[in-house]
């Protein structure tokens, strides 16, 4: 067994791990769960040698092991498959599998036949008929993941850490991955499975360790616990309701969208949004929802269509600034690239869209800025040491709250939330749903884009199904049963005249 004994790790100002102790049995699939900022990533990075400095010790094979680099951890028998895969897309499958330890013949020439044979061997073991000569960039994400697993196998790894392995897989691919995991387990390989998704944890894991706020809350056998119990261990309170009740009343028309098209992305999209309403856009990844949101917000140009706002007909927004100044705000799905300046402070990030307001004479009014920012921080209980803290050092959930606060500061009437809960934990998700709910109580309207069907159905008043760039069907909250909606989204079932609104 692997025992993690009294492991602590601090970063400036934050104690990421606080005296963690638990054991992982050889040959089991061990789930590691916890909210964002609970310390999962830190623990993985210690185990895989990326953070060599920590307190406490890690014992396996009967001796204390301390890895000072990722390479040492790998040769020591621990392989990690990160959420962001580390395959090199330009290289072939075999080259990736043997990356950094290529078998060579005399004069350092690559021994291709050994590479190919051994690659075939592990690929066959995993029952994945890939050609070792295939370029990895041409493979699906699921198969790229297989390549990483092969890498671990060729290294004779005894422990494989998987960090959110299903985050970009389809349902079918997830099933395939689970088959692969079971196969690895049969071979006696220990898996540390890190995930947000409780259902998956319960499907694949033998035992589960829960972390919260850097502390070890408990390690339980799957057979002796329930999803509800694990969730309440994660959040520190029991969550009876996944979604807050909807109580806002539908008011006047806010936004009407007619016949919007951007060639190659989406076509003939029409819908209305009223005060107090949340409309959900369901769809698979690549259905054109984000593209629609961006064009609507003025970040990209439209080919056809027009927008009406508060009863006025306006052609379209020429620039995001145009949209914001008329009360339409957009929360991007890409938190780091399109939402935040990671190196700037919370204050500077949050005040960016309202700079005009707080600098009427060109100079930023510091006191007013602090007051406004502080009020939102208290309102949404964003955890930070000061409003001058650099955003990068906040946890994912808190970063997301910073972005949302930043949008709310604009006092817009229409909000487009694109995947607002991606990559954040259950507790923070609930808080975001509540913020959305409260906004609608104030008479604002929300366009809610999400790839997680349960939340689209749980939060929205009306649900629009988008498929291959078209709105194919609209459901009311009552009509929308998960199976029915999923059928529309995934299957090629063509519903004629399904145009919404």
């Amino acid at each position, binding site marked *: 067994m692997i025992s993690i004994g009294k492991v602590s790790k601090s970063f400036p100002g934050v104690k990421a791990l606080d005296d963690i102790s638990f054991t992982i049995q050889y040959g089991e699939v061990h789930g590691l769960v916890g909210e964002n900022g609970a310390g999962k990533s830190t623990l993985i990075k210690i185990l895989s040698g990326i953070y060599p400095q920590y307190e406490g010790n890690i014992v396996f094979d009967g001796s204390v092991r301390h890895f000072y680099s990722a390479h040492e951890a790998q040769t020591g028998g621990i392989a990690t498959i990160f959420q962001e895969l580390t395959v090199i897309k330009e290289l072939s499958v075999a080259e990736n599998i043997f990356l950094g330890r290529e078998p060579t013949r005399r004069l350092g020439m690559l021994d291709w036949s050994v590479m190919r044979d051994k690659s075939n061997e592990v690929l066959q073991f995993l029952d994945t008929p890939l050609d070792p000569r295939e370029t990895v960039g041409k493979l699906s994400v699921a198969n790229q993941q297989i390549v990483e697993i092969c890498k671990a196998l060729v290294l004779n790894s005894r422990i494989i850490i998987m960090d959110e392995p299903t985050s970009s897989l389809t349902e079918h691919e997830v099933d395939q991955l689970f088959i692969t995991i079971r196969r690895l387990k049969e071979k006696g390989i220990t898996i540390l499975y890190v995930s947000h998704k409780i259902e998956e944890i319960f499907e694949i894991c033998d035992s589960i360790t829960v972390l919260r706020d850097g502390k070890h809350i408990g390690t339980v056998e799957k057979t002796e616990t329930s999803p509800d119990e694990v969730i309440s261990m994660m959040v520190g309170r029991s969550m009876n309701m996944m979604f807050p009740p909807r109580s806002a009343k539908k008011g006047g028309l806010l936004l009407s969208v007619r016949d919007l098209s951007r060639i190659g992305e989406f076509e003939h999209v029409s819908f209305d949004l009223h005060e107090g309403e949340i409309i959900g856009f369901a769809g698979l990844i690549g259905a054109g929802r984000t593209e629609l949101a961006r064009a609507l917000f003025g970040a990209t140009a439209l080919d056809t269509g027009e927008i009406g706002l508060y009863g006025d007909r306006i052609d379209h927004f020429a620039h995001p600034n145009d*949209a914001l100044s008329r009360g339409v705000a957009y929360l991007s799905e890409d938190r780091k690239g399109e939402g935040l300046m990671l190196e700037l402070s919370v204050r500077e990030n949050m005040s960016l869209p309202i700079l005009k307001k707080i600098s009427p004479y060109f100079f930023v009014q510091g006191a007013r800025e602090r007051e406004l920012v502080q009020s939102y921080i208290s309102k949404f209980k964003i955890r930070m040491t000061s409003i001058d803290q650099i955003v990068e050092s906040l946890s994912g959930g808190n970063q997301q709250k910073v972005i949302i606060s930043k949008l709310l500061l604009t006092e817009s009437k229409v909000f487009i939330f694109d995947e607002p809960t991606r990559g954040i934990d259950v507790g923070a998700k609930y808080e975001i749903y509540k913020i959305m709910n409260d906004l609608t109580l104030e008479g604002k309207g929300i366009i809610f884009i999400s790839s997680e069907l349960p939340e689209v159905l749980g939060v929205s008043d009306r649900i629009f199904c988008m498929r291959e760039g078209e709105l194919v069907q609209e459901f009311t909250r009552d009509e929308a049963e998960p199976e029915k909606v999923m059928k529309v989204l995934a299957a090629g079932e063509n519903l004629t005249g399904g145009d919404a609104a």
Partner: protein
Amino acid sequence: MNDLAGKNTIISSLRDVFKVREAPIFIYVIVMIAVFSSTIDGFFSMKNFEIISRQITTIGIVSVGMTLVILSGGFDLSVGAILSFAINIGGQGIVFGWPIWIVYPFMLALGIILGWINGFLITRLAVPALIITLGTMNIYRGITMVITKGVYITPIPSVYSFIGRGYIPFLFYAAVLGIFTFATLKTRFGRNIFAIGGAEESALYSGVPVRRYKTIVYIISGFLSALSGLILVGKSGFVQPQAGLGYELNAIAAVVIGGTSIFGGSGSVLGTFLGSVMLGIILAGLTMLAVNPYWQGLITGVLIVFAITLDSLRYLKR
């Protein structure tokens, strides 16, 4: 209770001072002045400081523009070429016998126009600013050489020398420093520059008119290059086509040594000032020590590598 709180704020604000990005370079500058003053007779004198201040002014002013450009995530290799273009093409006015109150605005306007061309191209083409300004640098210099045929404008009326006398260049420099320190720290303009350099897409989605601000930054850089040119003419008393050669790299050196991130989004005008002072002191000190001038290049190079190492350590720590 209040006393204690007061004391704590003093301690914590002292600590904050050392956390400031410019603190290390400030200390280096002080140490260097101390070392040179104790080893070289006459280093610590008003006369010498006047010489240093005059030396750092021209590149110093250009470096302030470069700081804004780099903060916004860009580069401007054309600063030296703009300087030369402004004073040589604008200097044709001197040849034609135009009065100074037309020649000066004309020169500055040329700087603004060339800066605007940079900004326009950079915000419209999907090519890094480094490459675009590498191109415009050669174009601007090329035009200057073609028109002037490499001929100096000399002699020039003595009114043009006024701006280059004694501490006057440094007063201009101080004013530029003051204005842009304030602008970067306290204005909407400054905030938006940092935001664009930090994450351009995020800035766009937050409603920042990214193109406009980026263009403005290159216009400012062009304007300051031309202003620096006026002072250079004042100091030298003639206009030469090769003016400003290599300014772009010296300016980038001052910016980087001053702690501004080469990737944009963090740094300061104050840091660049300290970077310029440091380079000026080294130059003066080594000259007074009669060190072979080739060593100066080597030492500047080491400083740049050192500064960039510090900057990248900042990233690695995360």
